[in-house]
Structures are given as C-alpha cells and as structure tokens.
C-alpha cells in the first residue's frame, strides 16, 4: 500500500503535465475571448472534482449515521476539506477570468453564485467540526452534511431561476465546444481527479495519525495519573 502512493503520485504528475500541455498548446484559441479562455481548463475541472468529493462526503456521512465506523467519518472530513480547497480554486479563477472578459471581478451569475453558496455550506461544516467537542463531532457533522447535501439542488435551482429573471453576464461560456477543447477539458478533469485522490489519501493518513496520537495521549494520562485522583 505504501509503495503505491509514490507510483500514483508520479502518474498523477504526468497526467497533470499532459493536461497543462493540452490546455495551453493543443486546444485551439477561442475566437472571442482569446487565450484568457484557457483558464476554463482549470476553472471547470476544479468545480467538477469538488462536486464529486462533496457527493462522497454525503454518502460517507449517511454511512456513518448508520454504521458508526470511524473510517467513514474520516472520509467525510477528508472529502469536505479537499472539496472546499478545490471549490476555492474555482471561485478564485472565476473572477480572474471575468475581469479581462467582462471588465468586472464579480458577476452574480448563476454558476458562480451557486458555487459560492455551496462553498459557504461546506465551510460551515468545517467550522462545526472545529468548534464542537470530541465525541459528538462525527454525528453532528454527519447530520449537517446530510442537510447541506439536501440543500444543494435548492441552491442551484433557485439561483438559476432568479438569474433567468435577472440575467447577468455568464461566466463559464455556453454554446458549442470544439472537440479539441472537450479533450483538453476531460484530460484536465481526469488529472485533477487523480490529484484530488492523492490529496485525500494524504489527508486521510494525517487524520488517522492524529487520532492515534490523541489516543496515545489519552492512554498516557490514564496510566500515569497526576495529583491525588484516587
């Protein structure tokens, strides 16, 4: 298992480089926006990867509520955290794309707004994990994750309708996509998904180690009581 990690790491790095090559060299230049449009090949896969991670978080949280295994809780924590990181990338690259194209940093367009709300929901999840105490954290977090996931369709649907009533410039582009652009997009998505897997694996191992250390501390204070606690 331990040897697999560096092998996969190297493969991921190769994929990411190939994705970069596809995005910057192979994909054709967009007609209206020019080379700036290539941000698309990082902006969109980040969001798709984050959605996959949040879906895994939803499943892991439900499993935890049913089976109560700590591995499921650790998967939930990991996917939420890494998902927020990827969503942050999406939310930062969005305005960087919007500025040269539309002249404004932020536009309350449907996709960017919905993504922002998703980001808020999962950051609140991370806050709950940090601020709640010990034993209850996994259960409370799992409950919040379920409600948060239930909220996601409402977020997208309500904001979509709102924006069809009050249209704003759309980031993310619409219309037909050249097949070479599709390929660059999919390659980068695959590369970032592998990268996300590696990051999640690392975060999972970190969490496992953290829990081991906490347990070791607890054992130590149990076996060597200080003061007169008899």
């Amino acid at each position, binding site marked *: 298992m331990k040897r697999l990690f560096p092998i996969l790491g190297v493969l991921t790095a190769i994929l990411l480089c190939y994705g970069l090559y596809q995005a910057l060299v192979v994909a054709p230049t967009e007609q209206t926006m020019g*080379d*700036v449009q290539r941000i698309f090949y990082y902006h969109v896969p980040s969001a798709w990867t984050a959605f996959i991670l949040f879906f895994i978080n939803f499943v892991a949280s439900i499993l935890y509520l049913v089976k109560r295994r700590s591995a499921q809780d650790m998967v939930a924590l990991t996917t939420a955290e890494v998902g927020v990181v990827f969503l942050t990338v999406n939310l930062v690259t969005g305005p960087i794309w919007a500025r040269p194209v539309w002249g404004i940093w932020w536009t309350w367009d449907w996709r960017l707004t919905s993504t922002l709300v998703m980001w808020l929901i999962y950051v609140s999840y991370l806050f709950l994990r940090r601020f709640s105490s010990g034993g209850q954290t996994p259960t409370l977090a799992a409950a919040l994750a379920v409600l948060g996931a239930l909220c996601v369709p409402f977020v997208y649907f309500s904001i979509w309708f709102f924006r069809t009533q009050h249209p704003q410039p759309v980031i993310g582009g619409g219309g037909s996509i050249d097949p070479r652009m599709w390929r660059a997009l999919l390659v980068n998505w695959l590369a970032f998904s592998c990268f996300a897997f590696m*990051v999640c694996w690392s975060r999972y191992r970190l969490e496992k180690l*953290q829990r081991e250390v906490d347990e*070791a501390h607890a054992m130590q204070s149990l076996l060597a009581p200080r003061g007169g606690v008899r």
Partner: protein
Amino acid sequence: MNGNGYLFAAYAITWVIHITYMGTILSRYARLKREIEQLKK
C-alpha cells in the same frame, strides 16, 4: 495586465492554493510522526 497575464495568474494561483494545502498536511504529518515517536518511548 493583458489577457495572458490573467491566464498565468489563474494557473499560478491554482497551484499556490494546492501546494499550500499539501504543505500544511505534510508539515502536520511530520510533526505528529515526531510526537508519536516520543510517546512510544
């Protein structure tokens, strides 16, 4: 900053975010490894 400047900035900041996050994971991991060696003594 012309178009390509924004493109570079977007790709750069993507990797800054990812590398920063990985960095925190690795440094926490190293610190915990040291701690557990200490505890096992």
